């Protein structure tokens, strides 16, 4: 082993360091991943104060409806599938789901943006929260149709869902599963 260290030139190690540095940046660049998760982004009292001030309706009651088994299957496929929104790959939805790479969507409707636990949000999304962004069926629809356009510089590095029907199925799934 000593021979390598004696024979190695600066450029040999420089190549290794450059490759490692680029590799360290790629998960963030490609997937929007972040190496550290922030335990609490906003205290529960602060979240409640924002919601109270906005006087929002209860979206879960407002949009509640009985979907058939076939509809539920389509909604699940739209949310889970690779051909659909691919949302399940990064998001938890139910209370008991384990947190994944992206914030949990449990009780997402009527919730201010960038307040979930166990996730480090981008500054741009925190700014959007401070400017009053609240997740409603309408804002979720706008966001997932073109995330980069709706919140430029956010870390959800997915192409927008252009198909309005798929978006509708995803939102219906959220109304049903995230309450």
């Amino acid at each position: 082993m000593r021979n390598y260290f004696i024979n190695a030139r600066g450029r040999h190690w420089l190549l290794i360091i450059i490759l490692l540095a680029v590799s360290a940046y790629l998960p963030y660049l490609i997937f929007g991943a972040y190496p550290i998760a922030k335990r609490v982004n906003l205290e529960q009292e602060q979240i409640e104060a924002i919601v109270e001030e906005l006087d929002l309706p209860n979206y879960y009651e407002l949009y509640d409806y009985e979907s058939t088994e076939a509809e539920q299957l389509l909604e699940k496929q739209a949310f889970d599938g690779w051909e659909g929104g691919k949302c399940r790959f990064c998001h938890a939805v139910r209370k008991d789901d384990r947190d994944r790479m992206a914030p949990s969507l449990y009780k997402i409707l009527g919730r201010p943006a960038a307040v979930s636990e166990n996730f480090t949000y981008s500054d741009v999304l925190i700014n959007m929260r401070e400017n009053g962004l609240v997740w409603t069926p309408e804002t979720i629809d706008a966001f997932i149709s073109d995330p980069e356009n709706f919140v430029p510089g956010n870390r959800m590095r997915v192409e927008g869902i252009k198909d309005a029907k798929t978006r509708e199925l995803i939102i219906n799934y959220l109304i049903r599963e995230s309450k």
Partner: protein
Amino acid sequence: MDNQIATRLSSITSWLVFIVFMVIFINMSFAPRVPTESLERKVLTNFHLVVGTLLFVLSFFRVYLWVYSPPQNTQRLLPDHEYTQMHILQFMLYVTFIAQGISGILAAWSDGLILFLPGADTVNHLLWTTSGYLHSVFGFFYIALILFIILFRIYHLVRYRVFSINIFA
């Protein structure tokens, strides 16, 4: 260890690592496309854990052989600095597999996928996030190393007429 035995063992281990790596690479290419909650995904994840552990153990053994019985530079076809460059890249590749194994085991453990003590609560999202990120970093790093090893192999072939098919040894 006798040098001849070490050379033979190194060669066998390198090929084993190459085969196991190909298996896990194919598994890794399919798994992310399978829905998280499905049974198929669970099977792929368990397979990933088992084969990944095997790759970790083999790489560890390969590094042990490398450190205690380093390959002798008996060839005269490549200049020393080219030979050293290739070996540094290959050595780093095995070290990365070890780092990949450690971060992978940590990620699986903090995600509750592997449990060593009954009833122990090992789930820790903060540790899972960091170890998962590192697992991804080392994944990109070994892909970059393999790419550069192949590029150097091609360069050596063109410039010095020297070629070896196993990029791992």
